[in-house]
């Protein structure tokens, strides 16, 4: 299985997947902030009640613990927004902080886009 960087995922429009409250992202990264509906999640520790992070060798698993099914809560126009840093890059360098938006699409696909100026997203 190929390990992608976030740049490759965005450039080649590689989709993630979602099932129930789980999102599979086809790249590895360090998360700093996740916004889902009006929940702002910054606690990614094991005791976090909002999100559980499972890092695999090639991809990243996110479990939104307070949601039964994401598609029931998130409309197709609404984004799950994430501030992250590509794996291996300096997390303390502000320029490496990237903002992405995830949209739930048909057939369990998650489209991944870098947010543009139109999207309201405060880090």
């Amino acid at each position, binding site marked *: 299985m190929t390990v992608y960087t976030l740049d490759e995922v965005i450039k080649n429009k590689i989709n993630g997947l979602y099932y129930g409250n789980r999102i599979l992202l086809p790249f590895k990264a360090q998360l700093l902030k996740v916004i889902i*509906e009006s929940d*702002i999640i910054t606690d990614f520790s094991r005791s976090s009640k909002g999100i559980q992070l499972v890092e695999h060798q090639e991809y990243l698993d996110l479990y939104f613990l307070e949601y039964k099914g994401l598609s029931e809560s998130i409309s197709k126009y609404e984004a799950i927004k994430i501030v992250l840093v590509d794996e291996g890059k300096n997390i303390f360098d502000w320029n490496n902080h990237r903002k992405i938006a995830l949209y739930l699409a048909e057939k369990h696909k998650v489209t991944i886009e870098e947010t543009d100026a139109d999207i309201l997203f405060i880090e």
Partner: protein
Amino acid sequence: MVKKVFFIVLMFFVSRNLFAAESKPLVDSLITSGGHTSQLPHPIIVLPFLVLLLLIATGPIFYKHFWERNYHKLSILLGLVTVSYYFGFLNDFKSVEHSITEYISFIALLTSLFIASGSILIKVNFKAAPVSNVLFLLFGAVISNLIGTTGASMLLIRPFIKMNRERMKPYLIIFFIFIISNIGGALTPIGDPPLFLGFLRGVPFFWVIENVFPIWLIGILCALLFFFLFDISNKKTADTVTEKGKHLVELKGSKNLIYFVVIIIAVFIDPKVMSWVPSLSPLPFGIREILMFSVAIASFKTADLEILKANEFDFEPIKEVAYLFVGIFLTMIPALQLIAFESRVYSHYLTQATFYWSTGALSSVLDNAPTYLNFLSAAMGKFGLDINLAADVKHFVVVDDVYLRAISVGAVFFGAMTYIGNGPNFMVKSISERAGIEMPSFFTYIVKYSLPILLPIFALIWFLFFRG
């Protein structure tokens, strides 16, 4: 869930005798409200309303996810307790019907403005700074008199967040709520629902701007001054790069502005305003509400998908308002009736200052539209006038206008005191949180912002205009 509701309603009817015995001292008391006479409720039935307020205040802080999953059920359940009491104990269907009618009007306006504004994208191409922010808020305050505080809030909150995104702090959103979602809309009957209800009862359209303008100006200028002091101490500068050759403001989806116009016109399509408009009574809605819901559907169906995506359009904020306010509208019926009764009993002791402060205090946590009507009714009762007679209202407006000024200002301005004081407050909060802004809790909003900022402004207004 259905079983639980049934059980509670059943328990209510089983204990009917108990409640009847307790309410005996008040059963002879009758109250005229909303044009009909009904029996005064027992004070204990205000409890569901207080419980709902407490839940709204504490839910998002102490049991957030339980609240998010269950707020709609709790709101409806508490509303049903009140409805059961009115149907089962008082045999009063009119009060509930009246409240439902007002709720449908309220939610029709909010829904249509929310959806129509979601299909419009305003892009701003200038740097946020204290002066430009002050001008933006002033513009919003003025515009809220033309498209309502709800319309202005929905249309302007996104560009306001975008232009401040590099220097975002919660106070920016709080002042937006203070100025655009509330105080700004005090100049016309379109601005805020209580003024519209006054207009329907016979207050001339331009009476508000002619009589409230100096108070509005002082209120707005004071709020802007406070904002400027906060904003100037925000050391983060907007490093948003302005693009040369681009307009300062860019509007996408401008065709949807026509929907706004239709909604504003629809506000006046009421048999009380235009005699040719047919009444759909006994249905709890009229042509106006049908038009507004039709505009909402048409606006959504014809919306540009890219704009919806850029606005991250979601029905959740309006769903939240719809569910919470159905509970608020139903559970507040006894609270409003008791207030109206008491204020009429003691009307001789009520001064312009008491009307200003009591209308204001109650508008902070109750819906300000019925609060306005009940206090207007009490003020008119003081002079032996009837709120249900347009001629009496017109007489009252001319002779005792200071009371109407106090009630109008109290109802509109004090809506800013809490998140639940006015419909748009909650929607602005919700949109901001979805943008990643950590908004203050219900209590923090009051303690950190409303009390230290708004209360001195409102006290100044009392001192200058309603001290008598």
